[in-house]
């Protein structure tokens, strides 16, 4: 919390004080409360939260400090040298008892029916202070609404949140967290005095992507979520520590489960200050329902006479053995390939690669199912950029933060909160550059919306601004101008549509910043010309020395994307990794390596005949759905393992039920390269098996065991993870090519594919709570644009590209402001990938109103 050495206060970095007779030394800036807790003295709190600014509202944390005439609230009193604090005197006890009495005046005694019972701060403190009698002899105040939607005095204020204002003790934690940490204003306090109430803002729902946290931090049962309500008492559940499977930062969570029913009831945070700060995005909180849904695949399916029919595992494995052997014998093992999901755990991913490479001698495997035409090897600037070290907590203490080509709120919620925190608590300067306006710009000093398709020119312009303003001392800076076009700031700025003055301000901040965090994101990864943009970023890094005074990174998107890289699931792993694999396996296949795109092309040419897909859904996620479908249909034999029947399993010859991440123990590597362990919370439901077990069973059929034991597998993974996969930066400045951008006549709008903030990939539409937040796709556009097409919120819009069309409802955006439309890709009912062409940089579309 506190600065270790605050130059403003001068002097020592620590203070020493006495609390209850114990001497304690804490960093300057610590509050009395933090100092007391650091030596194990517990002071009760309601309104204090470690990640929010203190407000001193509840007054339960009174302490007596010598020389202060009155009781002081320890949460808001900064510890000073020589303070003598007492936390347990009669005066303190009386003060706390008085506050408890006040709080309980109008608090209903409905603990037996309150879901917070058993984990309620107020209940615990009331027991601790022995307040068993009340001097209050009046009717308790009861809030009642005209539009009651549920029983008692409950009010639904959001898709998943129910508010009971009678129980509220007005600690304001929810309102403060919403504002300070999430930057949302859909919850507020209304009225005054003892009828003050927390409520949703008039006419709005509390539906922001972090709304679940409000329930978690509520000290009483005023806010409850619908998934947990009335289902079970907390003391009947057990907790299992785990990792979120839908965020690349690997948010730490706790599953609350009940063993006999083999069921998860809720998820709460398991605060890890290095990763998540204790905040969970809703997608993390509710995505456990993907596992508990009853739509899961129950048994293996085998295609017989064109129809998939249920079968036993033994039958399915036999078919796989027979058919793959046929292909292997007829055409060779290299005609067999595979695609694994980057959300699988290390063991499954590693087994997958080992199975394909060792059993079939095939290098045709990939883990990237939704990014068009990613490079198959690592000899490129994009891979260099993506391999750079990054620390999430490093965002906190950066003084300059740039987010480039990413909408953090949609795809990297955890980092989104960190950027906000750096602004709110450390006054960091934030710069946001994106081809469309994003919500991160709330906290930005400057938001730069550059023209669609000019990402690299914008970066070049920043470099040019630094050169022309003489801001940097990089020795070979003169070389740069030869490598980029155009070579003057004026021209570059004009091309990307951002004012030169604005670019100069950002360049100056990058040059002056003491610690800079530069985050590039999914728009870069998904872009066909990512190599060109990455080259521009390499130059930017060299010019400003960003990696030396901070960090520059392309954020990985999925829970174990980094694991896939570090375990060599890509077609051509990093050279160092290849060497290690060669040692472990005593030899590597030297056959041709294909990435996802090439594999699909060769399937269409019938040069790949057998294929294994594990947890992935390329039909839904890879650009040009028709192409993917046609390719997969050409296969002789397709095996798909997934939790659900999907567009891809529909094409399979054999479908195997896959266990979800909560059903087995596994390790995941988050975007900063940190390996985290998730424990098994449930027994696999129905007949599902974890990926590594499925692969082991298949390998058994080929009489080529993958591992002799689990220990062997783990030790091989350990060895691989020790390999440093960071790639060296290029020597000198690199040439930034000019991209050729196709213009499509009659298709004036640029379509950007995105994830809805409440969804990720293809599984989350199975989670009911997440569907309650957002249940169908939409087309998001600026209000002005909608008006130009005579469209209103909710109207059906026909969205056409040269190769396809879909009809989606309209959502008017508060942020977007130029010729861009967004459509989330997470919904089966709206196949937006059918609009995309495989080789395009920009997806041009047109829209029209669907007649009633």
């Amino acid at each position, binding site marked *: 919390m506190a600065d270790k050495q605050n130059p403003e206060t001068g002097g020592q970095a620590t203070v020493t004080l006495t609390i209850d007779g114990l001497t304690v030394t804490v960093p300057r800036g610590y509050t009395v409360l933090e100092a007391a807790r650091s030596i194990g003295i517990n002071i009760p709190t309601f309104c204090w939260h470690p990640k929010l600014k*203190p*407000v*001193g*509202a*509840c*007054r*339960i944390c*009174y302490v007596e400090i010598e020389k202060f*005439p*009155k*009781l002081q*609230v320890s949460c*808001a009193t*900064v510890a000073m040298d020589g303070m003598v604090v007492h936390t347990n005197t009669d005066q303190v006890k009386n*003060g706390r008892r*008085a*506050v408890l*009495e*006040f*709080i309980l*005046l*109008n608090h209903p005694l409905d603990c037996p029916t309150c879901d917070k019972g058993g984990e309620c701060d107020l209940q615990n403190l009331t027991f601790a202070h022995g307040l068993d009698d009340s*001097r*209050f*002899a*009046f009717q308790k*105040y009861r809030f009642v609404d005209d539009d009651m939607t549920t029983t008692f005095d409950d009010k639904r204020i959001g898709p998943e949140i129910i508010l009971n204002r009678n129980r509220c*003790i*007005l600690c*304001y934690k929810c309102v403060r967290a919403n504002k300070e940490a999430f930057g949302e204003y859909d919850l*507020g*306090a209304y*009225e*005054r*005095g*003892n009828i*003050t109430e927390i409520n949703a803002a008039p006419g709005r729902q509390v539906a922001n992507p972090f709304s679940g946290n409000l329930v978690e931090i509520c000290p009483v049962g005023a806010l409850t979520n619908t998934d947990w309500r009335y289902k079970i008492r907390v003391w009947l559940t057990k907790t299992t520590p785990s990792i979120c499977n839908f965020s690349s930062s690997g948010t730490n969570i706790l599953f609350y489960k009940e063993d006999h029913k083999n069921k998860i009831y809720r998820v709460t945070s398991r605060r890890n200050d290095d990763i998540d700060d204790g905040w969970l995005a809703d997608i993390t909180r509710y995505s456990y329902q993907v596992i508990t849904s009853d739509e899961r695949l129950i048994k293996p399916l085998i295609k017989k006479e064109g129809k998939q029919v249920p079968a036993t595992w033994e039958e399915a494995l036999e078919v796989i053995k027979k058919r793959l052997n046929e292909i292997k014998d007829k055409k060779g093992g290299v005609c067999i390939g595979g695609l694994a999901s980057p959300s699988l755990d290390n063991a499954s991913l590693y087994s997958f690669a080992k199975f394909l490479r060792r059993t079939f001698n095939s290098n045709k495997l990939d883990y990237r199912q939704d990014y068009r035409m990613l490079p198959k090897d690592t000899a490129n600037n994009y891979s260099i950029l993506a391999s750079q070290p990054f620390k999430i907590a490093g965002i906190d203490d950066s003084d300059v933060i740039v987010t480039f080509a990413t909408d953090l709120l949609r795809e990297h919620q955890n980092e989104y909160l960190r950027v906000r925190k750096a602004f709110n608590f450390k006054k960091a300067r934030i710069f946001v550059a994106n081809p469309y306006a994003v919500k991160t710009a709330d906290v930005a000093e400057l938001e730069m919306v550059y023209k669609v398709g000019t990402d690299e020119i914008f970066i070049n312009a920043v470099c040019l601004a630094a050169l022309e303003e003489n801001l940097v001392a990089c020795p070979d800076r003169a070389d740069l101008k030869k490598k980029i076009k155009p070579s003057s700031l004026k021209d570059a700025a004009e091309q990307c549509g951002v004012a030169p003055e604005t670019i100069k301000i950002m360049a100056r901040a990058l040059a002056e910043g003491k610690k800079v965090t530069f985050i590039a994101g999914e728009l870069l990864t998904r872009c066909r010309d990512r190599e060109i943009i990455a080259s521009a970023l390499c130059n930017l890094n060299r010019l400003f020395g960003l990696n030396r005074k901070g960090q520059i990174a392309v954020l990985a998107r999925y829970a174990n994307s980094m694991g896939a890289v570090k375990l060599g699931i890509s077609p051509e792993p990093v050279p160092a990794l290849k060497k290690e694999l060669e040692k472990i396996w005593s030899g590597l296949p030297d056959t041709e390596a294909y990435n996802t795109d090439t594999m699909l092309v060769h399937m269409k040419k019938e040069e790949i005949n057998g294929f294994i897909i594990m947890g992935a859904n390329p039909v839904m996620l890879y650009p040009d759905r028709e192409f993917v479908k046609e390719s997969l249909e050409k296969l002789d034999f397709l095996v798909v393992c997934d939790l659900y029947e999907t567009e891809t399993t529909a094409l399979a010859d054999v479908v195997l039920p896959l266990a979800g991440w909560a059903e087995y123990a596994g390790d995941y590597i988050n975007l900063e390269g940190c390996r985290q362990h998730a424990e098994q919370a449930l027994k696999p439901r129905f007949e599902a098996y974890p990926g590594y077990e499925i692969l082991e069973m298949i390998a058994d059929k080929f009489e080529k065991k993958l591992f002799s034991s689990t220990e062997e597998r783990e030790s091989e993974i350990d060895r691989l993870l020790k390999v440093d996969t960071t790639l060296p930066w290029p020597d000198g400045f690199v040439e930034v090519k000019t991209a050729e951008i196709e213009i499509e006549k009659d298709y004036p709008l640029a379509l950007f594919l995105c994830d809805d903030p409440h969804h990720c990939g293809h599984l989350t539409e199975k989670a009911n709570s997440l569907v309650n937040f957002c249940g169908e796709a939409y087309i998001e556009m600026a209000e002005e644009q909608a008006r130009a097409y005579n469209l209103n919120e909710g109207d059906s819009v026909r969205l056409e590209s040269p190769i396809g069309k879909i009809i989606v409802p309209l959502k008017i955006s508060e942020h977007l402001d130029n010729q861009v439309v967004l459509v989330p890709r997470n919904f089966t009912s709206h196949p937006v990938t059918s609009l995309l062409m495989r080789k395009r940089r920009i997806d041009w579309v047109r829209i029209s109103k669907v007649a009633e």
Partner: protein
Amino acid sequence: MFYSPVITNAAEAVKNEKLHLFRFVEDSEQVKIGTYEAHGGYQAWKKALTSMQPAQIVEEVKKSGLRGRGGAGFPTGMKWSFIPKDSPKPRYLICNADESEPGTCKDRVLMERDPHAVIEGMAIAAYAIGCHRMFIYIRGEFNHSIIRLETAVKEAYAHKHLGKNIYGTGYDLDMVVHSGGGAYICGEETALLNSLEGERGMSRIRPPFPAIEGLYACPTIVNNVETLASVPHIINRGADWYRTLGTEKSSGTKIFSLSGHVKRPGNYEVELGFNLKKLIYDPAYGGGILGDKKIKGVIPGGSSTPFLKADMLDVNLDYESLAQAGSMLGSGAVIVFHEDTCIVWVILKLIHFYRHESCGKCTPCREGTGWLEQIIGRIEAGGGKPGDIELIEDVCGNILGRTICPLGDAAVMPIQSAIKHWRDEWQFHIDNKKCMVKTNFEFR
């Protein structure tokens, strides 16, 4: 031109050199800038800006002994000197015109009848602290004051007393008139800052004090209207002259808003140290009690201050004397109650107000005021129970000094003093389920 029909002692002020605040308040032309200038207006601002250093002004005000007229009585010059000298952030001056204390209506008269004096005082204070953008936060219900100030600010801009490069000195100063949303709590300076920023009006925890981190987390000074209106006179006539007014420790003049059971309720500017009894009984001021009844008690400084009993009225109206008498000068609202007033009823009205105005932030004030209203309401309605007085005292004790801002203290201090002075009357109410005094007097 419309005036709020409030009696003032302006006629006396015209004759008496010492009474400077009210000299022109009965002049209907005073609101116009031409008249104000003709009466010597904006001379102090010109003098300060063209011939004095900011530090000199702060020193002069310090020397004058001017203390905050909003209630707390903090030395004004000292407050100004708390602004950090080396902060690179902008500084702000805010004039607190959210006059909502029951009984107080002095700022309103100044704003409605002499708005330029307020602007001039603000400008000098702004220059003294290095502020280039000042605000006046006016209580939302004061419609006339808001219109007056807005008009006056426009005139001041037109006459180049505000704006860019004032008097050719290169000093820029802008002024914003802001209307509050109608909450008593916004008169508390940190709640006022929140409200001005667009947040819910709730007090902030201190430290940091506004002088270090106030409006938009920048150094900010918040001063009362009357305080600022006194500043031009100090600049014009000097601190030494100001010190000759009032008592040694409470220098200057003060406007007292006299209300309640007096024959001539109104606003009276007097030197500090003026005798309370004289204020109530002198025909030039209060003129005695309605119906020539006896006095029961007086609240000397606005509804937040403890009562004075009838036998304690021979007291001088200055900060020290009133503190010695067990009360406070507060905002200078003297509320007089005659012998037929039911004290329980008075307290019920007061606690109702504080319950309604508690912002809802900190527990003791939010819950305690509601509970107190219920208990006192029960006693007043004839349903009091034995032990209620002790319960009230205990609840008051649990609120006093335990809240973020002074609203909690303000709510309980009059209750505590009322029980102390008239305990027998409370007891009678509980025991006999009726009032000891004959009639209730409805305030109009």
